């Protein structure tokens, strides 16, 4: 079962190393990981997806809490979080297929980030499932390159970590 763990850490050199080190040492597998600074420049948020049972996630949380650079840890529940990934995809196109691709973008809410005579570069920020769907729709047009970020997430509603 995939679970999302949100970790607030001190924004210092070596902190990410500490977190990933903990995962490898305890043999927890990271599915995806995204790091970025928060509104407070001294604090970063790391969003980690692990694909493991509840007991493993509980252990991850407890072990993370023992690191001095970790400020807070929270496991986010799927239906109680806003979670997004960013996808950038380059597809080949011709004059004939360009309109079809633009239609797909409109349906899915993707933006056209760049165009060349025979390619289009599209960006979409959405949930993982929707990104997968978008990619599958683009596949017939020949995908040249894909870049995806890890998932980032915050709790729904007014609550904060």
């Amino acid at each position, binding site marked *: 079962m995939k679970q999302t763990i949100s970790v607030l850490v001190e924004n210092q050199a070596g902190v990410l*190393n500490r977190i990933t080190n903990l995962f490898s040492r305890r043999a927890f597998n990271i599915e995806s990981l995204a790091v970025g600074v928060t509104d407070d420049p001294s604090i970063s948020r790391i969003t980690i997806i692990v694909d493991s049972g509840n007991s493993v996630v509980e252990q991850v949380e*407890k072990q993370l*809490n*023992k690191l001095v650079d970790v400020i*807070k840890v929270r496991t986010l529940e799927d239906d109680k979080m806003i979670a997004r990934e960013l996808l950038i995809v380059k597809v080949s196109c011709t004059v004939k297929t360009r309109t079809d691709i633009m239609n797909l973008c409109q349906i899915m809410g993707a933006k056209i980030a760049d165009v060349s005579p025979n390619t289009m570069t599209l960006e979409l920020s959405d949930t993982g499932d929707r990104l997968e769907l978008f990619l599958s729709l683009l596949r017939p047009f020949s995908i040249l390159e894909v870049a995806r970020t890890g998932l980032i997430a915050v709790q729904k509603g007014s609550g904060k970590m």
Partner: protein
Amino acid sequence: MKVKSTVAILECLLEQGVDTIFGYPGGTILNIYDELYDYQDRLHHILTAHEQGAAHAADGYARATGKVGVCFATSGPGATNLTTGIATAYYDSSPVVFITCNVTENLLGKDAFQEVDITGIAMPITKATYLVRDPETIPDILREAFAVAATGRPGPVLIDFLKNVTAPDVLIDYEPMERKEHIKHGRLQALTHRIGWDIKTPEPNHEDIRKLAEMLQNSEKPLLICGGGVVRGRAHEQFRTLAEKIDAPVAITVMGGGGFPGGHELATGMIGMHGSQASNMACDNCDLLIAVGCRFSDRVALDPETFASNAKIVHIDIDRAEIGKNVRTDHHIIGDAKRVLELLCEMVEPMEHTRWKNFIFSYPKRVAYEDKPDQLTPQQVLETIRQIVPGDSIVATDVGQHQMWTIQHFNFDYPGQLLTSGGFGTMGFGLGAALGAKVGCPDKTVLHITGDGCFRMNGQEMATESHYDIPVITFVFDNRTLGMVRQWQNLIYHKRFSQTDLGFAPDFVKLAEAYGLKGKRVTNVQELEDAIHEALEWGHGYVVDCMIDTDEMVRPMVGGGQPITNFMLI
């Protein structure tokens, strides 16, 4: 006031009450050693033969005294030589502050001479590591490091100073501060506000304790496990009071040695792979198992599925992450062992479990080894030592058969009396640890019990023992083999003795003499008695080489991963 950064470092050590440092100098840490020259009257430095020996000595000092140990080493190989010692301290939750230095800022990351990323290397084997690049942060980081090492579940931390940070022309702001004030300042203060950090150990939840008191009231067959947390938390008195009040048998883990008197009528002996029949049967038959400061390692809970399967398991620990890590638990209490046991004791009524005790103690709590006419047996060696040395002697062991025999045979009565590498199982731990313990507790007789394999790892610390005249008595269980490995080969590997023959070992008596110690080889009880008396009278480092049989085994034994009562040897 403005002081040299190296002055600030040493002053911060004094703030913590440090009086002894174990270490080894080198290029990058020269500035600190230069400053130490002026602090010799306040900071006693012990130069070991090897950084690993220094690490074990600082660890042994910490375990024996309950204070934080301090160890210095230089960059590169100096730092990496510490790693086994750091890991040893980490796995047994021993508070040690390791201080290393690294190359200067402009060389960092350039693969300079003796450069190594020790903060990276030490990450998984420390509670925290600090790379100090800004001299102004020195007081703050040192104060935090000591607090982190000593509080909550204790453990090692490592501070790596860049050499330029310690340069003689670097002046920083330093205001002396009493230790109890530290928590109100800097990062340490910030840490106290975080959920996961127990710099201020929180009061245990009284409801949780009340629930355990109720569970106890409903239990007919309770069993207490005394783990390393009782020793580290110095909760031995509270533990004993509770055990006597609820009249429950007590099984003792390797790390729990000294947490509960081994000779007490409620003690069932060691539990686990080489646990007594009484302990292991009690574990299998109890209806309530209360583990205090014990992490249910694979040497205790050999098979987590069947471990205490007839019991409700209650786990008392200061480290939340230990709850539910290795075995399922029915109830847990987070807190300092001393405080939890104190409160629990107030909440329970006196009990009596005579039938249950009769059942448990119908099984032996100690193995009977047969005497052999022409050879010393491990039991004879230990019994002879026990009869002659003071009962409160500190015992440091290495790892293997001699370690198990010692823990099975000796009764440890107070925390810090047994120093052994239980979690990491570090061969070569004993001599350094014994030296550290003797330095920390000069009034106690300190014994180092080792095997011929272990003694050859870090035996060079005899040089330290001799130079500083730290009188430790070493007993070598000399069976000319790697005994524990051979035991497994005997029992599990069809007597294929692959690479365990140590018949080519040096003459330990001559070796001791070469270092300026005295030594004697003994082959029977009379010779052993004479040697012990001579060692005690002589009052300096002494090595007794005890010749025992090669195929002597540690009994009982339960195979790894097996249910705890599946004895392959009894």
